């Protein structure tokens, strides 16, 4: 059966699921970053989502937006570096799209991706084509916007696919920001580590919701 919305408690479970899978992705992300950056992306993301898992375990949350905001501030504080600022800003921004939401449904999901994208662009000043996580996030936000009438399993599948293809496309781009920018053409052939993380977060989101759907 299709899942149409997540309750506050289910959104918390979603982040528990994302956190454990991001922590498991540590070595893969580190290797991706060694090819193109300074090799600390996996360490930082794992540290961040370990902190998120602890926060979820200990915290009481008043709303869906509150969970997103807490995840954002926790990532901001625990990752550090460019990744902390960007992924922290993404979730803090995303919470702005969820004001007054008692549950996370497809229109809210579309708004939250769009609001997160806007915050990331303000903070990082990156646009599509700069070989950053925006290359995965912007097509995902657009896919969500175009499919907000669909069920939550469908919309998360489509956003995950859009992010994945955006991430794959970063292999064909030359880095213009971050520590990879001086690689120039040597950055070709390697996907951007931030785009990988963004597409993973959206993939794990879909996998978790698919799992709920299968249980129903």
């Amino acid at each position, binding site marked *: 059966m299709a899942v149409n919305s997540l309750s506050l408690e289910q959104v918390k479970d979603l982040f528990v699921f994302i956190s454990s899978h991001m922590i498991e992705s540590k070595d893969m992300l580190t290797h991706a970053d*060694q090819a193109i950056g300074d090799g*600390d992306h996996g360490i930082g993301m794992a540290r961040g989502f370990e902190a998120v898992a602890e926060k979820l375990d200990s915290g009481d949350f008043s709303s869906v937006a509150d969970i997103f905001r807490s995840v954002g501030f926790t990532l901001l504080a625990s990752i550090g570096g460019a990744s902390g*600022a960007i992924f922290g800003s993404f979730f803090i921004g995303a919470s702005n799209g969820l004001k007054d939401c008692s549950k996370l449904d497809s229109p809210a999901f579309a708004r939250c991706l769009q609001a997160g994208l806007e915050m990331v662009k303000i903070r990082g000043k990156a646009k599509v084509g700069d070989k950053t996580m925006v290359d995965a996030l912007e097509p995902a936000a657009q896919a969500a916007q175009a499919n907000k009438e669909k069920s939550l399993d469908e919309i998360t599948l489509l956003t995950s696919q859009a992010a994945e293809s955006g991430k794959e496309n970063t292999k064909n781009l030359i880095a213009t920001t971050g*520590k990879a920018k001086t690689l120039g053409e*040597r950055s070709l052939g390697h996907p951007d580590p931030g785009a990988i993380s963004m597409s993973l977060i959206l993939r794990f989101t879909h996998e978790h919701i698919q799992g709920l759907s299968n249980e129903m």
Partner: protein
Amino acid sequence: MIKKIINNPKKVAEEALHGLNLAYQGKTILLSNASAIVKTTIHDQKVALLVGGGSGHEPLFAGFVGTNLADGAVCGNVFAAPSPDQILAATQAVNRGKGVLYLYGNYAGDNMNFDIAAELATAMDIPTKSIRIWDDVASAPLEKIEERRGIAGDLFVIKIAGASASSAANLEELTRITTKARDNIRSMGVAVSPGSIPETGEPTFEIGEDEIEIGMGLHGEPGVAREKMMPANVLVDVMMEHILTDLPFVAGDEVCLLVNNLGATTMMELLIANTRIREILADKEISVYDTLVGSYCTSQEMAGFSISLMKLDNELKKYYDMPADSLALIKR
């Protein structure tokens, strides 16, 4: 796995800062929640100077906290900028009512985290200004100077800013002088072997046994060229050409010179390089007011060195001459 004398790879930044604070013999306080150190005594109404960035470049940044130097330093994990809440805590600790100047290397992570902290500080009625150091001529062309990285030239900017902060009337005055120092500095580095991040235990880049990277960045970012190994004099000629033509430094100029070890290069090699640097400067009729040779801004066990020059004028010279006292820079 590269050998390092450590305890827990996840705690190197924290344990190093703890040891650094102890070495200050009570002149600094450790803010352990913020991974920062601040001077024990900062007098009222002083315009504050906060420096910071990723760890792994010791003694930069925390080694330059002290008299007529930085009031505090906030340290991230190895090669990762500190987070906004760390920076904000350090900001509150050094602020004496006159505001805080943030001074840090120009990297995306540092820029974003210090910007967020500045917004949070503003909301708490603490005025801040930010100066990003971009002295590395190898990292972008001159017309894109705002994209250049900050490397060992950080030391000279901190020296001038720290001296200026001790007497500056306000944050604007400190910002003006520090900006002038930043804009008068040019640097370039080379590497013959990589450093490594303790938590991964792996080198940050690969380079052949017989190769050298000219313009290598502080985190292993690629430079302008990868060449076969060459004699020191030939190498210094190439580096000095890039540095001198960029500002440009011209006959009659007076400069401070820093020959900086990136981690694993011997003092002997630095001194051999210095001989050639001085020959070139003498030939160009550029006089050297002061020379520093040693490990000031490193990249773990990276082997290589960098050259930094700061062109002086009377105002900068006045601040350069002021005594300074810190763990890694003492000037009498």
